[in-house]
C-alpha cells in the first residue's frame, strides 16, 4: 500500500547551537554547538533528546508529553518560538529559551507569571444558578464559537512574542490569557462579569492587533479574530476604559463626518493631556492637522447616508 516515508530530501545532519545559562553560576549566556545525525521525520525534540541522551549533555530543557498536549516544550528556534515536540528539526538550529520569560536554566523558563495572572481571571465557569446535573442542557451550537479556543495547550509561545507584553508593566494579560478568558466569556453557562475582567483586569484594548501571536500558535488558533475581538466587543460595554472610549469616539466621528477625525478621537479618548497638546502642536506646525480640528471639522457630503447604512448594518 502507501509508503510510510514520503520524505526523500531529509538532510543527514542537524547542527544545533544551544543557549546555556545558569543564573546561579554564569555571568552571561553562552552557546554550545552540537552535530547530531538526522533521523527520519525528526522533530526539534528528537534533536534535543539526542544531545541529552546519546551525547550525555546535562543541559536544561522541559517536555512532559511529546505529543502536543502539555504545552511545556516550546523554545525559540532560529528566533521564533516553536513547539519542540511538534515542529520539524531544521538542518541548522539556534535554540534558545522563549523571549520575555525568566530563565530557570538553559532552555527552561518560568511559567509563574502566567499562572498568577490566570488565577486573577477566575478561570473556571462562574455559576450563579445551581448546576443542574449531568448532562446540563447545551448543544454543540451553543459552544461552537469557542471551538478553536479549546485547543489551546498553554504553550505560551504567543505570550513570548506579544510586543505589548514585552513592554515593562504593560498591565496587559497577553494572548494566551485572553484565549482562556474569551473561551469562558463565550460559554453560555458562565455568569461572571467577563466584560469587566476583559476591560480592567486583562486590559484587552491594549492589544495592538499585530497578529504576532497567531503567527506562532502551534495549534493555529485564530487568536485575534476568535478570542480577542469578541472580548473587545464585550469590553466595549465598559465605557469607562480608554479603549472603549476610543472605539466609541471613532464610530461617532465617522457617523458625524463621514470620515474619522483623529484629533477628536484622541481628545475624547484621553481628554486634554500635556502629551496630547504637544503632539497636536507638533503636527499642526507641519500642516498635518489644524489645532481646531479636535473641536470642529466639516462633514463630508455623504455623511448622512453613511450613518444610515452603518446604523442599518449595526442593528442586524
Amino acid at each position, binding site marked *: 500500500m502507501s509508503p510510510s516515508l514520503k520524505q526523500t530530501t531529509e538532510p543527514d545532519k542537524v547542527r544545533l547551537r544551544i543557549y546555556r545559562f545558569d543564573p546561579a553560576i554564569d555571568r552571561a549566556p553562552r552557546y554550545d554547538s552540537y552535530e547530531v545525525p538526522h533521523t527520519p521525520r525528526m522533530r526539534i525534540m528528537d534533536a534535543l533528546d539526542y544531545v541529552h541522551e546519546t551525547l550525555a549533555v546535562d543541559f536544561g530543557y522541559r517536555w512532559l508529553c511529546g505529543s502536543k498536549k*502539555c504545552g511545556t516544550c516550546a523554545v525559540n528556534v532560529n528566533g521564533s518560538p516553536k513547539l519542540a515536540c511538534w515542529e520539524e528539526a531544521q538542518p541548522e538550529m539556534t535554540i534558545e529559551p522563549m523571549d520575555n520569560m525568566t530563565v530557570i536554566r538553559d532552555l527552561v523558563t518560568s511559567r509563574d507569571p502566567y499562572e498568577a495572572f490566570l488565577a486573577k481571571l477566575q478561570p473556571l465557569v462562574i455559576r450563579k444558578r445551581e448546576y443542574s446535573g449531568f448532562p446540563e442542557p*447545551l448543544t454543540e451550537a451553543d459552544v461552537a464559537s469557542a471551538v478553536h479556543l479549546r*485547543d489551546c495547550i498553554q504553550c505560551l509561545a504567543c505570550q513570548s512574542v506579544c510586543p505589548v507584553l514585552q513592554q515593562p508593566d504593560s498591565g496587559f494579560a497577553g494572548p494566551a490569557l485572553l484565549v482562556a478568558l474569551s473561551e469562558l466569556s463565550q460559554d453560555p453557562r458562565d455568569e461572571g462579569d467577563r466584560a469587566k475582567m476583559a476591560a480592567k483586569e486583562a486590559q484587552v484594548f491594549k492589544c495592538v492587533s499585530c497578529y504576532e501571536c497567531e503567527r506562532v500558535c502551534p495549534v493555529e488558533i485564530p487568536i485575534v479574530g476568535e478570542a480577542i475581538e469578541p472580548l473587545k466587543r464585550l469590553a466595549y460595554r465598559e465605557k469607562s476604559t480608554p479603549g472603549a472610549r476610543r472605539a466609541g469616539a471613532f464610530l461617532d466621528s465617522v457617523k458625524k463626518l463621514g470620515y474619522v477625525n483623529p484629533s477628536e478621537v484622541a481628545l475624547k479618548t484621553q481628554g486634554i493631556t500635556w502629551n496630547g497638546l504637544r503632539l497636536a502642536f507638533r503636527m499642526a506646525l507641519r500642516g498635518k492637522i489644524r489645532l481646531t480640528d479636535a473641536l470642529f471639522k466639516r462633514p463630508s457630503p455623504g455623511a448622512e447616508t453613511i450613518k444610515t447604512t452603518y446604523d442599518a448594518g449595526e442593528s442586524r
Partner: protein
Amino acid sequence: MVDVLETDVLVIGGGAAGTNAVLKAADRGAKVTMVVKGLLGKSGCSIFAAFTPYFQKTDEEIRRNRWRFMIRYYNHYLADQEYCARMEDYMCTEFYPDLERLGVYWRRDAEGRLEMVQARTRSLVAHKQGATGPILMDKRRREIFRRGIPVYEECAVTSLLTNGERVVGATVLDYRRGRFFVIHAKNTILATGHSDYLATRATGTREQSADGIAMAVRTGAELANLEIQWWHVSDVLEPKSWMRYHLYPNPLMGTLETSRLYNSQGEMFYEQKTHSPGAAAPYTEQLRRLALEVAAGRARWDGGYHSGYDHIRAETINTYQHQAKVWSKLGLDVGKDRIECGITWHMRHGGLNVNAERMETSLPGLYAAGGVGCHYLGGFGPASFDGKVAGEAAADDALASGRKPFSQEAVAVEEKRVFGFLRAGSDGPRPIQAKLRIRQIMWDLGYVKNERNMQAALAALQAVREETVPRLRLQSTTRNWNTGWMDALDACAMLDACEATVRSGLNRKESRGPFYREDYPYVDNENWMCRNIVKRMNGEWQSRTQPIQAPYLPPEKSREPFFEADY
C-alpha cells in the same frame, strides 16, 4: 537543617488520581499539600486520555458488556470486583457532574444529545477524541489553584518517611532550585501513575521513572502483579518523539470502524471489530496477533508493520479525532496513507497492594490511588475514583488522629543519598547512560518472556546497580534544574522498580493478558487468578500470593492455552 512543612494529607502526583485526592481531601476539611514531579495537570499519563467511558445502568445489555470488558478484557480477571461495583456507581453519579460543574464541555450534537462512541461500551469525549485528558486536567488544575491548595510543582518526592511503623511524610527535592525539604504528614497518598518510561519505547514520559513503585519497594510496602505490563501496538514509529501518538484500535467516535494493523506484506492482521469485538481496549489481543506476525517474519516489534484509518471516511476522522493532525503534519493523507508503528511499553496493571475499600496499602499511613495501585488497571475515571476514596479516607483519618514524629536520621540519610549524586567529573558514566541502559534491558526482555531471559535481565539490572551507579558523574554540580542530577535519581528508582517487576514475573508461572511466558504458555485461573505479591525487607525479597474473588463475573475456563484466550 532541612525545612519541614506540616500537613494533614500529603498527595504525591498530579494526575487524575492525585488531583481528585487533593480536592476530596480538602472538601473534608483536611489541610492538604501536593507535590508534583512534572507540572500540575500537565504531567503523567492522564493528559493522554483520549476519551472517558460512559457508564450507564439504564441499558442492561450495555451494562453487561461494560462489566465483561472491565473484568475480562481490561483486567484479565485481576480486578477487585467489589471495587468495580463501587467505581461503577461513582462513574454513574459523580465523575461527570464534578467535571462538568467546573466547565468541561462533553461533546453534544446539534440537538444537545451527548455524542458517544457507539460500540458495545460507550465513551464520551471532551471536545475531540484525543483531546479529552488535557481539558479535564486543565479544569482540575485551575480548581486546585483557585482553592489556594499548596502545590509544589517540579518537585520530586525522593523517599517516604516512617516512624518505624507508619508512613509520616516524605522528602522532596525541588529540582528547579535544588532545595531539599520534608513534608511531615499525618497521611500520605501515593498517586504517581503507572505509565513509566522504563523501556526504550514507552508511553510514559520523561519524568515517569516509576518513583512511586521504587519508594514503596524501599519502604517495604507490598507490591502486586507488577509483571502484568501492557504494551501499545499501534503507536507511531517515526519520529521517535511521537511514539506516544496512538492510532486507536479501540472504538472511535463517529464510526463503527477502528484503526487496523497491516503486516509487511500489506495484509491486515488485526482490527477490533473482527478480532476482539468485546474489548474496547484490545491491546492484549493486538499483541498476541503481532507476536504471530513477528514469529513469521512479517513484522518487527519496532516497525515493519503499519496502521491507519484509510478505510474510514477522512471527514469522520477529521471531525472527531485529534490525531488527524499527525497525518497532515507529516504531509500524509489520513484517508489514504498508513503509518509505520512500533510497540511501546504502556500501563502497568499492578502496583502497590491496596485494600481498595479505602486505598490503604500494607503500610499504615500510606494510601495509593490511581495507576500506582494493583486493584484495577486504571483509566481517567477509575483513577479519579481512587483519588476520591483515598482522599476522603486519608483526610478523615488524619482529622481524627495526631501527628507522629519522623526519623531525623532517615532524613539525614536520604539527604546524603540525594546530594551524594552531585559529583562532577569525567571519570565515570553519565546518569542518562544508566537510564538508557535500563530501558534497553527492559526493551530487550520485551514481550516474549521465559525463566532464562528474565534471569538475564535481572543480572543485567544488577550489573547497572553495582557497576554503573556507584561511578556516576555529573557534568555540573549546579542545583538549578540539573538534568544529570535528576537522571541519577531516576535511574536508581528505575532499577528498583524494574527489579521488582522482573522478580514478580519470575514468580508468576503462567501467561495472562499482556504477560506472556513461553515456558508457561497457558492461562491458569485455578492457581494464578491472584495478587502475585513481592516486597523487599532489609534487602531480602519476599513473595506471597493473595487470591482474587470473582463474585460477579468468574472466568469461564480454569485453564486455557494462552494463544487461544481472547483476554
